[in-house]
């Protein structure tokens, strides 16, 4: 491998509290080092910003949901799929891009790691096949647990140790990264045509409440000491007035301390919080409750959130929250896919147009940005669009533009047909603050890496970390007057070095990189009851045999395994 010296850039690295100092970053093989040798290739970053590779904490980028979206939406590719280019694979689609476009576009934006946010365990082989087909970026995947029959049965009886043994088994069987909760209990209720819209609605048959599932899985997660905390999509997503449910769910983390060896502080990551910060009791009096939700998050250091910003695009919603997609289909009458995943979860897919001239969409847009602007600690508040649910991940640079420039926000707001109604229902116009490049690095690099328990690999430029370095054409001392230039710079990195290889130069892909699949192997002591339960359920309930269930090694040919030894 090679050595590189990235010279004279404005280095921004919150992990070392460096904010725009001119410095050199040295790389040897696939790590950042103190000093480069005399033969190192020089990359001139003079007048440009140098950051660590980005870390995306939550995006739906691989697996059956995404593929159903691709299958049912050929129109997503229309006029958005350039003809084949030399040295590249075809790139197709917009909100549900092909695997190659996914890898390329993340790399162009200088992203090194992306977490697939919801893996149905039964379909984990498919998820890993797609991850393997996505070039350049490192990826992990979070299996969904909160509507799983085993988990609900163990937690109903308060058996944390058994729940932990099962979760550890499932993580290793699916090569998963951590514990994801989607509409706890509500998706299981969907099999009865019902939902759990508060955290106290009992799940039919199991007679357990979402609150009990959430609390139980937090305990399970900390019992195992996993790198990431529970990663939760709260109940009642997208419903006016749901902020009360959100605040109540966040309370469940109160007083719980993180127990892990990965430098993680939070015990709950509450994802796409924009969809959960709604006031009013109908779409008529729909309003922002971003301030209330963020006040709560600000005062609880053991909680992290990501935004789920609405980007005002035509996109494709997809979630394991089956009942929500049914509800959405009744709002917009477009295409709807629904699926049940036996014993484990469900999913739905519906296309959605966030039209800037619809009042509700404008308010949703404002809420996503308000949440970030109200955040006291950007390193616990991460930029996402819940790709592709609130918008495609290729809009992160646009979200950055809106956060860094009040003018850019005003400009967008003024194009809305119902501008004044959006202003009345939100605080967006009265917020003058603008975020700095340092804040953006906290929200897209150091913050998410730490929350995922990956700060020993990603998110910073300290020596010993993985050699993921992005150079953006922005001068920290002379930021452009035109905020569009901020978006353009973050959309196409001048340079991106991933794992010690130049993969992007002047916004163009130069190399297919050497991507890795990161997964967590938690070793618990032998638990005969759980082993028996697993074998029983495969005999009685699953339609597949246990031998056909696990992800074979060949499906994740470039693994990076994080071993966790659980001390009982």
């Amino acid at each position: 491998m090679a050595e590189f010296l990235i010279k004279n850039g404005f280095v921004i690295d919150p992990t070392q509290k460096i904010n725009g100092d001119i410095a050199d970053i040295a790389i040897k093989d696939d790590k950042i080092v103190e000093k480069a040798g005399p033969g190192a290739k020089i990359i001139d970053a003079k007048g440009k910003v140098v950051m660590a590779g980005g870390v995306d904490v939550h995006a739906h980028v691989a697996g059956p949901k995404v593929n159903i979206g691709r299958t049912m939406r050929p129109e997503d590719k229309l006029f958005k799929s350039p003809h084949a280019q030399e040295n590249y694979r075809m790139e197709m689609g917009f909100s549900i891009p092909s695997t190659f476009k996914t890898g390329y576009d993340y790399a162009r934006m200088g992203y090194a790691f992306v977490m697939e946010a919801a893996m149905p365990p039964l379909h984990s082989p498919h998820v890993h096949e797609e991850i393997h087909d996505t070039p350049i970026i490192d990826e992990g995947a979070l299996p969904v647990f909160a509507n799983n029959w085993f988990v609900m049965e163990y937690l109903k009886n308060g058996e944390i140790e058994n729940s932990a043994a099962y979760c550890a088994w499932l993580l290793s069987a699916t090569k998963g990264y951590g514990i994801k909760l989607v509409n706890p209990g509500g998706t299981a209720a969907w099999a009865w045509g019902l939902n759990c819209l508060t955290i106290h609605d009992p799940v039919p048959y199991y007679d357990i409440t979402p609150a009990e599932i959430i609390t139980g899985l937090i305990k399970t997660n900390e019992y195992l000491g996993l790198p990431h905390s529970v990663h939760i999509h709260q109940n009642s997503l997208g419903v006016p007035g749901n902020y009360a449910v959100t605040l109540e769910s966040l309370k469940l983390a109160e007083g719980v301390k993180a127990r892990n060896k990965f430098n993680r502080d939070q015990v709950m990551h509450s994802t796409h919080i924009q969809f959960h910060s709604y006031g009013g009791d109908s779409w008529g009096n729909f309003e922002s409750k971003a301030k209330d939700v963020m006040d709560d998050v600000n005062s609880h250091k053991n909680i992290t959130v990501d935004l789920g910003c609405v980007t005002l695009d035509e996109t494709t919603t997809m979630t394991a929250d089956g009942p929500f997609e049914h509800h959405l289909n009744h709002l917009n009458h477009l295409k709807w896919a629904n699926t049940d995943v036996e014993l484990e979860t469900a999913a739905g897919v519906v296309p959605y147009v966030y039209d800037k001239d619809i009042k509700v969409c404008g308010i949703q847009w404002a809420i996503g940005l308000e949440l970030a602007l109200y955040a006291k600690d950007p390193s616990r508040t991460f930029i996402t669009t819940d790709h592709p649910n609130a918008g495609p991940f290729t809009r992160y640079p646009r979200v950055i533009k809106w956060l860094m420039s009040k003018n850019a926000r005003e400009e967008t707001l003024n194009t809305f047909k119902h501008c004044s109604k959006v202003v009345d229902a939100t605080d967006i116009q009265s917020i003058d603050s603008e975020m700095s490049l340092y804040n953006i690095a906290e929200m897209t690099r150091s913050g998410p890496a730490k929350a995922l328990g990956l700060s020993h690999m990603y998110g910073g430029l300290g020596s010993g970390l993985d050699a993921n370095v992005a150079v953006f054409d922005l001068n920290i001392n002379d930021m452009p007057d035109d905020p569009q230039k901020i978006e353009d710079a973050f959309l196409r990195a001048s340079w991106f070095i991933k794992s010690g290889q130049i993969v992007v130069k002047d916004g163009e892909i130069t190399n297919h990189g050497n991507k890795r699949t990161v997964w967590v192997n938690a070793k618990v002591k032998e638990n005969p009851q759980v082993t028996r339960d697993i074998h029983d359920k495969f005999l009685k309930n699953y339609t597949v045999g246990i031998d056909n269930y696990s992800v074979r090694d060949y499906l994740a040919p470039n693994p990076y395994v994080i071993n966790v030894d659980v001390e009982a």
Partner: protein
Amino acid sequence: MATIKLKPYKTPELYLEGFNISPDVFVGKSPSEIASLEGREGKTRIELGDFFEVSGTTGATASDTNILIDGDCSRVKYIGNKMTDGSITVNGNADMYVGGWMKGGSIHVKGDVDSFCGIAMEGGDIQIDGNAQNYVGCAYRGDWRGMRGGTIHINGNAGNDIGTFMLGGTIIIEKNAFIHVSTHAEGGTVIIKGDVQGRVGGQMVKGDIYVFGNIQYMLPGFKEIGMIEHEIVGEKAMFKHFIGDLGERHPKSKGKEIFGNLYLRAS
């Protein structure tokens, strides 16, 4: 109006994607610049000059520009793609996607056209002297936004899936059509002067269909509510008035449910 002439001199081995054949693209360009415009034959990049001799002049604006294709285009797709103004005349047949995503101007094909004529069209006029294949004025695969405006006039027969997901505009078929007319439509008017085999108005929410001949197999989702006299495309006639598709959702306007209308000429 200035005329720029394309004379086909070579038949493409594969189908030629002529997405640049439009007054909007040609305007202000010299014949040699037009001859070097990009097209595709399969996955190969070609230039229009590889297949057409280009002569004449273009106007100062697209609206002053007439493109005359003097010969057969049976293997040329996307003629008039996304055009907004001006006119195109084809002295022969054309392949798929004539006038696709068209916003204005006019296209006249003197022969037959293949499928997807006027797909997702928003405005302008398409006149086909011969027959059309399938998907006249339909939506793109998977899309729920079909033809929104303008007029497509087919002098001969048309195949299946006419006006799928239609939202506005008018389609006139002078002779017969096969199956699936105005499926999923939420607006617009389809007029068929001859016979249709069946599946007329399936899952139709709103819009109008006129059939002057027979419908061999009527869909069960349509209900006859009376007789009505209408004058349409210059012809006055008595029609049986059906509403439907009763199995589909229907929006309300002033408290009244709105249905799709199917008018079948009473013989």
